[in-house]
């Protein structure tokens, strides 16, 4: 009797041992496997924002130097936004308040692009931003090129102008710096080494992507869904969402990527929610026959993209996010990681 029990116990022990060993082997495997994430998408879709989120989530946030850089960029951007809106006022034939006309003139005479930020200019920006004509111009911003985050920063102008202003993480996440070239950043995500490739999204940047296509583990394609009524930065005629769809189709079916799993991240959903109440989606996508609400439109967009990238060799995962929201992005990356793990284990025959 005792002997039998002992045998049974031994068997159990062996089984448990094996299990533990297998787990160890698995985790070992996972840790050794270099993961390469390719973040692609059209210009201004939020690719670099994802990278910034990873900096917050998996590294120690932004350095002092980063913050200095962003502070300068944010402040310079405010001037740029005001100028764009002023031009919008002119274009739309709106009338500024009398007292603001002189200021507006001075503003428009500021040299283009050159970084120009003085205490006077920030005060003037504030005054102009409070002008109803400027608000009107802002409402019609889809007609000219204005960064999505302009509203966020203009609303925070007091804080940004204050002497001790230090950009918060949220400010940095919202701050747009257009990317040029290809950046490879390494992260350690729950003990797993990730190599993340961030690229510029404009047309002129896309030919550089191919240099990093090989060895990709997973493709993350970012789509800014709120862009459906906006025109391209590069040619001012093509609809941005159309462009993004076309780009996805060609990229996802590229010979190096066609068998890679893919995550489509529908981004800027917060801005999309606002916009859908004001701008009819049907105006931009005539095929769309549904009713103009968030759920139906997003479902429609999703179908378009999934169809464009679908083939038998890959799985497509869809996520919705607002890339400036750290919690949402943490959720996305958790999901991405479990996909990757599953994949690795499958490849090694564990599953």
């Amino acid at each position, binding site marked *: 009797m005792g002997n039998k029990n002992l045998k049974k116990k031994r068997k159990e022990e062996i089984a448990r041992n094996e299990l533990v060993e297998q787990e160890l082997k698995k985790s070992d495997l996972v840790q050794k496997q270099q993961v390469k994430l390719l973040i692609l998408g059209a210009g201004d879709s939020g690719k670099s924002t994802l990278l910034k989120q990873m900096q917050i989530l998996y590294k120690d946030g932004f350095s002092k130097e980063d913050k200095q850089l962003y502070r300068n960029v944010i402040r310079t951007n405010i001037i740029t936004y005001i100028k764009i809106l002023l031009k919008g006022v002119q274009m739309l034939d709106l009338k500024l308040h009398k007292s603001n006309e002189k200021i507006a003139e001075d503003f428009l005479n500021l040299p283009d692009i050159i970084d120009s930020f003085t205490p006077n200019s920030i005060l003037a920006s504030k005054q102009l931003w409070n002008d109803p004509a400027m608000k009107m111009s802002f409402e019609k911003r889809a007609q000219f090129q204005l960064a999505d985050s302009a509203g966020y920063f203009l609303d925070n102008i007091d804080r940004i102008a204050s002497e001790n202003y230090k950009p918060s993480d949220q400010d940095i996440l919202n701050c747009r710096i257009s990317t040029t070239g290809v950046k490879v950043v390494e992260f350690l995500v729950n003990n797993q080494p990730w190599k993340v490739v961030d690229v510029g999204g404009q047309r002129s*940047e896309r030919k550089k992507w191919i240099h990093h296509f090989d060895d990709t583990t997973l493709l993350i394609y970012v789509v800014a869904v709120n862009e459906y009524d906006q025109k391209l*930065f590069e040619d001012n005629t093509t609809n941005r969402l159309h462009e993004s769809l076309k780009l996805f189709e060609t990229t996802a079916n590229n010979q190096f990527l066609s068998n890679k799993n893919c995550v489509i991240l529908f981004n800027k959903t917060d801005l999309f929610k606002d916009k859908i109440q004001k701008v009819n989606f049907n105006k931009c996508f005539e095929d769309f026959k549904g009713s103009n609400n968030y759920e139906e439109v997003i479902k429609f967009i999703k179908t378009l993209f999934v169809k464009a990238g679908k083939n038998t060799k890959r799985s497509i995962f869809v996520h919705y996010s607002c890339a400036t929201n750290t919690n949402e992005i943490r959720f996305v990356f958790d999901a991405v990681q479990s996909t990757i793990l599953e994949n690795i284990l499958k490849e090694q025959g564990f599953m």
Partner: protein
Amino acid sequence: MSILQESKFIDIQSTFLRLANVVSNMACNFDNLLYSIQSLFKYLTHLLRNYSMFFDPQGTLNSSIKKIQNILLKMLEEWSQFFIECDSKHIQKVHSLYLICRKIQDQLKEREIMLEKLENENIQNEQFQQFENNLLKDMEIIIEKRHDFLSETFIQFSNGFLNFFKQYSEKTKEILLLVQDKSHTEIVDMEDPITEASSIEFIFRNKYGRKFLGNFLKKEFCFENLDFFIEVENYKKIEDPIEMHKKAQEIYNKFVKENSESEINIEYGIRNQIKNQLPNADSTIFDQAKQIVIRLIKTNSLSRFLESEDFEKLIQRLQPKQFLFTEKSNIPMTSISDPTTTQSQIETDSEISIDESLNDDASDSDESFHAPFSFLPAMKKSILRSKSELFHPEQKESETFFGHRFTRSNSLLLFQQQKSFSKPFFSQINEN
């Protein structure tokens, strides 16, 4: 304010220059013994000049302070190492000096840790200053205590060092204040175009700056930005209208046109504007686009470049190979107009350039020296030879800062003898 800051920085710089010269004058009295210190301060000066060219409010200054500190530490380490190996007859004196070095070295190390803490905002500025004051007191005590052991020259040197350190510490405070001004209170014109541009513009305008930045940008696939910038700069120099028109078309085809070979990332409006202006191209046609690419490089690549190997290489390249002997390098520098430049500084400079011609016939030294202490045997020899001078200085005080005169013959001899071991010493520093 920014200009004020710049002038402050230049002031700091010239103080360093002056100090470096004072120390080098003193070093001459020790003959070869303190040669390494002299060269070190020269190196330090040079480094500061280099860094000033990259001076920007975004923290490079901090790292330059760190570098200086590292060098000081290194100097003291080598120095004390040397004393260990020194002649046994003077063991007592040497030993006490060695202890002083050791002590100062430890304190400096501690100071560095504190400085780091300060940068990371783990401690307050006042705390650091408190520490600094204590440190200075400690040093004074250390040096005072040993007075009886030491020869007059050593005491003078120690005091000189102490003085140097005091001033250095003052300057550190100033720099720290500047840096803090920038990040906490000085908002007004933080978007200071002059200082901001000076760093990147230096890189853009310097031959090697372009080369190494270019290498870096190629790795990140955005070299076209720099390429375009350079082409536009060349374009602006063209005077002949026909030639100019041709070049404008060339640049347009290569960088601006849609789907062109090295298309730059500019928005539709600007590209269109260039296209429309092309038939009547003037020298400003690409200016707006140029500003954009500068900005792209500045916001995208510059900070990464400053941390890259390529930047390290650039710094090394900018240091003339034998800058000891060619102090007046041909690198474009931020102009240093310092009315207080001492006579001795001018003297030193002229000595150096005279010496350049003598370098070639001064290479008769021992081949078996090895880095990093390859210069020690030679130093020992010369110490033994000149020990009487060394420990019983006979020179009369003159009007110079620490009461020692810099003599021409002395320095010529010095440079001739020491030329052979200057290189390994520096290559070692450069690696760090």
